[in-house]
């Protein structure tokens, strides 16, 4: 057990370190001196660490990690690392890996236990609910400490630094979980993690104990126009605030809601609950708006009236502000329901001519409309407020723009369009006209790069190839924001459970962001368990407060306790727990998993090469994934970076060229992104929407896929040949034909193509249905179906000439549930820039790419580093299968050929 966990944490640390290293070389030196102690600390000591001591750990992680790693490097891996690597900041990473591996080896027997332990986590969390308060406090404290430390470390930080912070957060989360567990008295389960962290803690505790908890004022504008003030821990995560607000509102079905940063009025930026608030909002005081984030397609399925009430409030704002367009008649009708809900039956005496004027029903409300509203109001006699709200929602939900989140963009020809993200997919508008629509099942991949946003869509019947459609967003932030919204919407509406975070990805460029909350399916399930009497709540009108339906802050601050009265937390068992765990995963892991993945991050060595002048980034990622329900989910992620937007040209070049193997590459660049999940700086992000789909939606998907039949081949082209060599080593050669910024092989397509049978598609789909999470792929029919422990993804960069070769050494997966990929020395890639974002890296190792090659040769045994690689699913499958067939063998080498595919910006 311990070993596993430890490795994980280490991994995280590593990743952090890597980034940190890159970002702050100077800091490293300072930290080095401290390193020794860390190394000295045996695992056993760590195990005993107490919760309190843990707190500091999170903070220290960046620095402490570095410390640990550096020494380790010197001892272990460093020798294996090519000189150029050493020069680079990333070299430190290797050290930690060694440790991790060692631990793993020693503890292999225990691994199974670990898993078990991890799984229980959620439960533990639940148990410790009573203690949650404490736990959260502790967490906060910890966070605060962390921050302080960080500051010291990160003063010089540039973008990379930010990434580090993100990683750190992840760690923190896991730690928090641990704390909770501990309180729950399940220390056993997480011992390993603690152990590792302990080192850090020890160090930091002594140093940091004296620090105080700082609180910052925070204001949240609620939907009824009132404003609440909170004092938040400086390091508090978004979730803390959100939970407070929901508590205040007595809202249990809270997954539909979110907090909006009041930074730019034009576009909503959502507070990420999994991240520290301070990292998401620059200005003080912190101002947020409580809003509906995911509009329930069918509000009647909400469990509680109070939830519908808040949805109504949101919609009234949306309508009055013009964001949700309605016809005159609809404005009037909805307005009349609003009156009925808030005023009750029409009373000629009480409701004189002016009563209506305090309501705003439409952006441009006319006398005529008000008369119509009154006329309709009279017809609603007898409707209770809840009924009136329901009627309101029944009408509002049918509005074509209901729940559509619009983003300004330009198409490839520079024409102004709007991209609308909704429950069903992505809508493209030109002016008010819908000119295209991409349902989620049609979308294979969503990515952004710089200010460009891309979707890769399934080929239509007439087409042979998938097409990638690019849109130009006003700026990088807008592109990322859109991308995140897409990821979130897809996850929320179409997946059963949140996808696993990309944490483990090693060298991945771009954002690791994933939706971490509950999906609609989950929240519905949780809601069905709500068992409390309908809570009392006051409607705004009854209060007769001046209201601003247009969303303008009213400026009323009140601490209304009335809302709290009934606040009994009666969330179903799954509710809070799940939520916490997910968050803890930093993205999405379900507890145990998350940690593992995080851990994997640390394992990965980072190699970064930057070629000056060339700004393309390539990334090869071998990802170790734990396999759980989510096996196979992770697909390929391709990160490509083209500095100039000249994607097309590159793509073309790529197409024509097949990438040679290792030898071809001039430079290889690997960047580790482990921490980057949230930084605004992230240039790129990818998301492949096709993993687990909720059952009800699967059917639809199938149907859509049917049209696609016959194109699977194309989709599958990514894997051209898989060679299985028996013997101690298995070589898998995968050719990727698609390069454009994204090389993704559609999961479904892959199987088909490989088998060469188109009919497989259907099978695959059926399988999908039956086993949402697991897709079975047959490769050449030779390989038996095996669950994939490793879902490494190889991402080829868009750069045409880039070839990536990766060596993946897979240790015995059998023992470890989590990840079988032990080593992934990364091959050289042609791409120059590994660090996609940090200018600092540039020029660091351009010419050294060749060296990377040598790194490949390192066998897993000799090198203890583990690399996280993203490999296409097909590849993962192949590896896995190979493993399965030959448990005693390890995959030492995976050669991936990439063929470029046109990045079709046109369209």
């Amino acid at each position, binding site marked *: 057990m311990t070993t596993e966990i430890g490795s994980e944490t280490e991994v995280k640390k590593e990743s952090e370190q890597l980034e940190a290293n890159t970002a702050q070389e100077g800091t490293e030196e300072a930290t080095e001196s401290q390193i020794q102690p860390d190394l000295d600390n045996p695992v056993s000591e760590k195990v005993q660490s107490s919760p309190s001591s843990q707190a500091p750990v999170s903070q220290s992680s960046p620095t402490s990690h570095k410390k640990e790693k550096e020494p380790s490097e010197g001892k272990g891996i460093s020798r294996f690392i090519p000189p150029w690597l050493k020069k680079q900041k990333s070299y430190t990473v290797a050290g930690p890996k060694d440790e991790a591996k060692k631990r793993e080896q020693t503890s292999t027997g225990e691994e199974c236990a670990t898993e078990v332990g991890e799984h229980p986590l959620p439960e533990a969390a639940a148990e410790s609910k009573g203690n949650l308060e404490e736990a959260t406090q502790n967490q906060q404290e910890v966070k605060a400490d962390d921050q302080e430390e960080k500051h010291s470390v990160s003063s010089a930080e540039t973008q990379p630094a930010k990434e580090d912070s993100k990683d750190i957060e992840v760690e923190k989360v896991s730690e928090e979980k641990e704390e909770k567990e501990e309180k729950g008295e399940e220390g056993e389960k997480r011992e390993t993690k603690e152990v590792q962290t302990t080192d850090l803690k020890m160090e930091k505790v002594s140093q940091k104990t004296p620090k105080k908890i700082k609180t910052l004022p925070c204001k949240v504008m609620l939907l009824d126009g009132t404003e609440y003030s909170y004092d938040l821990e400086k390091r508090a995560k978004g979730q803390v605030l959100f939970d407070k607000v929901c508590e205040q509102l007595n809202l249990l079905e809270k997954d539909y809601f979110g907090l909006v940063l009041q930074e730019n009025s034009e576009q909503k930026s959502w507070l990420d609950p999994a991240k520290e608030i301070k990292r998401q909002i620059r200005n003080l005081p912190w101002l947020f708006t409580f809003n509906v984030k995911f509009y329930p397609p069918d509000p009647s399925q909400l469990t509680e009236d109070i939830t519908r009430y808040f949805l109504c409030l949101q919609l009234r704002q949306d309508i009055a502000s013009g964001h949700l*367009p*309605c*016809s*005159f*008649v*609809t404005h*009037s*009708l909805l307005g009349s329901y609003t009156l009925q809900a808030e005023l009750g039956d029409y009373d000629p005496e009480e409701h004189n001519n002016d009563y209506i004027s305090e309501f705003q029903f439409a952006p441009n409300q006319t006398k005529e409309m008000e008369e119509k509203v009154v006329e*309709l109001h009279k*017809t609603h006699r007898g409707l209770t407020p809840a009924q009136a709200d329901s*009627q309101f929602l*029944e*009408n509002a939900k*049918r*509005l*074509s723009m209901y729940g559509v989140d619009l983003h300004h963009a330009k198409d490839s020809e520079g024409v102004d369009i709007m991209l609308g993200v*909704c429950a*069903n997919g992505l809508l493209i508008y*030109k*002016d*008010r*006209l*819908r*000119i*295209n*629509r991409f*349902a989620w099942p049609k979308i294979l991949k969503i990515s952004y790069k710089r200010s460009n946003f891309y979707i890769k869509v399934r080929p*239509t*019947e007439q087409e042979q190839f998938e097409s990638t459609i690019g849109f130009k967003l006003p700026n990088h932030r807008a592109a990322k924001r859109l991308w995140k919204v897409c990821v979130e919407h897809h996850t929320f509406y179409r997946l059963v459970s949140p996808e696993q975070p990309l944490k483990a990805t090693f060298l991945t460029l771009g954002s690791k962001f994933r939706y971490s909350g509950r999906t609609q399916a989950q929240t519905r399930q949780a809601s069905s368990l709500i068992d409390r009497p309908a809570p009392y709540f006051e409607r705004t009108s009854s209060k007769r407060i001046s209201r601003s339906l247009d969303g303008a802050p009213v400026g009323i601050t009140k601490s209304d306790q009335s809302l709290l009265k009934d606040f009994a937390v009666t969330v179903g068992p799954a509710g809070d727990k799940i939520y916490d765990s997910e968050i803890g995963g930093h993205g999405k892991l379900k507890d145990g998993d998350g940690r593992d993945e995080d851990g994997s991050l640390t394992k990965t060595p980072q190699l970064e090469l930057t070629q000056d002048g060339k700004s393309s980034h390539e990334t090869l990622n071998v990802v170790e994934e734990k396999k759980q329900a989510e096996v196979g989910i992770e697909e390929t992620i391709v990160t490509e970076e083209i500095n100039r937007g000249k994607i097309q040209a590159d793509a073309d070049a790529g197409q024509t060229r097949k990438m040679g193997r290792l030898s071809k590459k001039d430079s290889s660049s690997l960047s580790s992104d482990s921490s980057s999940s949230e930084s605004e700086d992230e240039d790129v992000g990818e998301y492949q929407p096709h993993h687990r789909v909720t059952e009800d939606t699967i059917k*639809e998907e199938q149907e859509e896929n049917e049209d696609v039949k016959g194109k699977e081949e194309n989709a599958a082209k990514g894997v051209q040949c898989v060679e299985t060599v028996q013997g101690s080593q298995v070589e898998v050669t995968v050719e990727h034909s698609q390069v454009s910024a994204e090389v993704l092989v559609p999961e479904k397509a892959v199987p088909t193509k490989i088998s060469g049978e188109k009919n497989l598609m259907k099978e695959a789909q059926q399988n999908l249905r039956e086993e949402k999470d697991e897709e079975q792929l047959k490769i050449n029919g030779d390989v038996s179906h095996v669950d994939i422990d490793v879902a490494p993804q190889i991402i080829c960069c868009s750069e045409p000439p880039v070839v990536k070769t990766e060596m993946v050494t897979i240790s015995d997966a059998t023992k470890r549930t989590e990840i079988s990929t032990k080593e992934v020395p990364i091959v050289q890639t042609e791409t120059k820039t590994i660090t996609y974002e940090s200018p600092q890296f540039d020029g660091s190792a351009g010419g050294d790419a060749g060296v990377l090659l040598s790194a490949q040769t390192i066998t897993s045994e000799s090198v203890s580093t583990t690399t996280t690689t993203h490999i296409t699913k097909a590849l993962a499958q192949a590896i896995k299968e190979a493993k399965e067939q030959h448990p005693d063998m390890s995959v030492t080498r995976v050669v991936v050929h990439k063929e470029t595919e046109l990045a079709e910006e046109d369209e």
Partner: protein
Amino acid sequence: MAGLSSSGSSAGGLGRCSHAVVRALPESLCRQALRREKDSEVDFARAEREHQLYVGVLKSKLGLQVLELPPDESLPDCVFVEDVTVVCEETALITRPGAPSRRKEVEAMKRALESLNLNIVEMTDENATLDGGDVLFTGREFFVGLSKRTNQRGAEILADTFKDYAVSTVPVYDSLHLKSFCSMAGPNLIAIGSSEAAQKALKTMQQMSDHRYDKLTVPDDAAANCIYLNIPSKGHVLLHRAPEEYPESAKVFEKLKDHMLIPIASTELAKVDGALTCCSVFINKTSEL
């Protein structure tokens, strides 16, 4: 009351109507009406007979209140009232027909609709053109064919007029109008022709919609233009082209067991690209009946 609940997205309201507006055909139609096939000759007497039958069905058989506008010899195409307005619920958009010779047709229609107390919206933008024949309202959303007669701007104005609904554009290449090869044959049921162009347009519509429609494919594009009405006393009513004209397509319609089927021949107006839907505008006035 009106609003989405009664006639809107629920699609349950599709085809509900109390009134219809039609217009008699002028003699000038025979020679001057626009047509895609230049050499087709219209038998005016027969055209008139067919049209009277058509109006008779609406009036007597279905019990609709039919406003019959007088013909205008200076407007040879004026019988095709569908093109000059799009009525949805209580709102009528007076279009700006793509053919300049037809622009004045709107005047009589506007007066008629005003008499019905509809909210009138006029398309005054001189860059906009829209023929009602390019507008397919499914009960849930609009599809607007971008054709020689209808342009993007026209579609935008339609979208601005009917804000509750999604308005998607569909390119139309080989036909006069979008509805030259399709129409609604029931709530959620799209009748579609078999031609390649028709099928392609259907695919486009399917892709653009969040909703899944059933489709009724008929062998003949022209036969795919039918009139679905939902008359309280009659239930589902479908006016479709007569078996004499399109026997194979008629067989398809005859499979609709829930519909009251009324075959109507339109051989003459078809020569000037007239389809069944072209000759009427349906209005549902619930509040005043």
